[in-house]
């Protein structure tokens, strides 16, 4: 559904952030994009919706070549790509509802958006999404009154109201505590499943990525050095991506996580139990 072909990004300073990235994202697949700081993860997802202009290569979304679009055609395609940010990137002085509705800006004209006269269907959808992410009480609060986890939920709702085909997620949990991080990752993955959305999630926390995604892509200095399911990652792969380090702690954590998941499945407890359990454990870390 999304194809990247030999994407290169060279910044005006001469830094090569991406050196020919080729990958395909099928419909509904959630990908964890890992790699050290400066590997080009943020640049990669920003090249897709062209917040950063790729220097070379082609990117196609559902057979539309994104790299060659003019300004207005690009805006139409951006509606199909919801983006979620590390520092939430909410407009802090706007209300929660205005932030969510800003996800519809690509669909309405200037004056409608200026007077906040969005179509009723958008408003219904906004209420539905806010309810889904657990913020129905917060509609008219200003975004800067919310906690980190709540803000990221607003960010998720804003991305989803665009009715996207793919989510581009940039370090969604980097500013959150461990428990909230898991809740947010779970929410994103659940919503992707519900709606059949593909997603590319940039993430620092390897263990967290392994918990939630089915495919991991490892990026190192602008090149893909790993692409596979999370359980095929070893200490060697991590060394290849991040460089030499003692990975036993990370790997062990992964194993525990896997055990825990298996344990959850085995006794076939009620649907809510594993979640509560995991949250409790997460709270301790």
């Amino acid at each position, binding site marked *: 559904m999304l194809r990247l072909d030999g994407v290169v990004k060279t910044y005006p300073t001469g830094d090569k952030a991406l050196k020919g990235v080729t990958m395909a994202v099928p419909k509904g697949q959630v990908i964890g994009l890992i790699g050290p700081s400066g590997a080009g993860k943020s640049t990669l997802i920003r090249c897709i919706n062209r*917040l950063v202009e790729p220097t070379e290569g082609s990117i196609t979304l559902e057979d539309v070549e994104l790299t060659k679009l003019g300004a207005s055609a690009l805006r*139409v*395609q951006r*509606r199909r790509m919801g*983006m979620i940010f590390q520092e939430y990137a909410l407009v*802090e002085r706007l209300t929660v509802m205005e932030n969510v509705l*800003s996800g519809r800006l690509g669909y309405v004209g200037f004056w409608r958006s200026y007077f906040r006269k969005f179509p009723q269907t958008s408003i219904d959808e906004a209420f539905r999404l806010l309810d889904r992410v657990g913020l129905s009480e917060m509609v008219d609060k200003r975004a800067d009154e919310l906690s980190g986890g709540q803000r990221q939920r607003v960010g998720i709702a*804003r991305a989803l109201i665009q009715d996207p085909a793919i989510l581009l997620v940039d370090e969604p949990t980097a500013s959150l505590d461990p428990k909230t991080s898991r809740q947010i990752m779970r929410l994103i993955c659940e919503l992707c499943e519900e709606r059949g959305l593909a997603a590319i999630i940039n993430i620092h926390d390897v263990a967290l990525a392994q918990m939630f995604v089915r495919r991991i892509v490892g990026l190192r200095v602008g090149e893909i050095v790993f692409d596979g399911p999370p359980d095929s990652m070893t200490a060697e792969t991590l060394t290849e991506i991040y460089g030499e380090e003692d990975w036993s702690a990370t790997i062990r954590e992964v194993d525990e996580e896997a055990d825990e998941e298996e344990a959850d499945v085995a006794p076939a407890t009620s649907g809510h139990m594993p979640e509560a359990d995991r949250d409790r454990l997460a709270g301790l870390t």
Partner: protein
Amino acid sequence: MSLAAQLGGSKRWKRPPLIKSPLLRWLLGIGAALYLAAAFGSLEVNWLRVWEGLDRGWAFVLGFMQPDFVSRWADIKEGIIESLVMTVTSTVIGILISVPIGLGAARNIAPLPVYLFCRGIIAVSRSFQEIIVAILFVAIFGFGPFAGVVTLSFATIGFLAKLLAEDIEDSRAEQLEAVRATGSSWLQLMNYAVQPQVMPRLIGLSMYRLDINFRESAVVGLVGAGGIGATLNTSFDRYEFDTTAAILITIIAIVMATEYASGIIRARVQ
């Protein structure tokens, strides 16, 4: 390892000097002192004149003690009203012109040619003091408040557009990015990402400019551009210090009132 450390003594530390080279450091210091001495030496002070001036100053102080609002009240009232009209109209006109120029002069949202053009306008507006601009506009449009309004509007652009542009450049890039990523148009980006971030500052600056413009309206009157400045000048020329004092007190009261009001408004819009 230093000798002292080798001997088991403690290592000494001094803050590194601002200018590293000792030669340059001393040269600059001595040079500045010499220039200052020479500059003071070249000031010619006529102490006799200063002494005579003290009397005049005292007369002014005495006049100030007994401000006379009554005998020239009609002139004062007319001047103040004219000044207020000039202030409000020039501030509104200035804001209306400043906002688009400020948007154009913010590097993070404007393309380079637009940016350079708008920065150019700001630079021109800022490079002349109000008095000089007022002299020019009085020469063009003739005596009276219209020249004053044009002057103050022009000066407002340099002030407001520059500070607005800088505030926009300081706004959070990720918020702009997020709104842009939704597929918004440029105008929607301004309305949803830029305006909420800069509005409190824009309101604060506008209020501040309103009271600057009131004070300036008194100054530009001195060169014939209307307002209370003309009345003030006349009273000075006639040595009517009591009337002058009344005018000054009125100006102070109005400036304090606008300052108080702008303080309240700025606190409210946080």
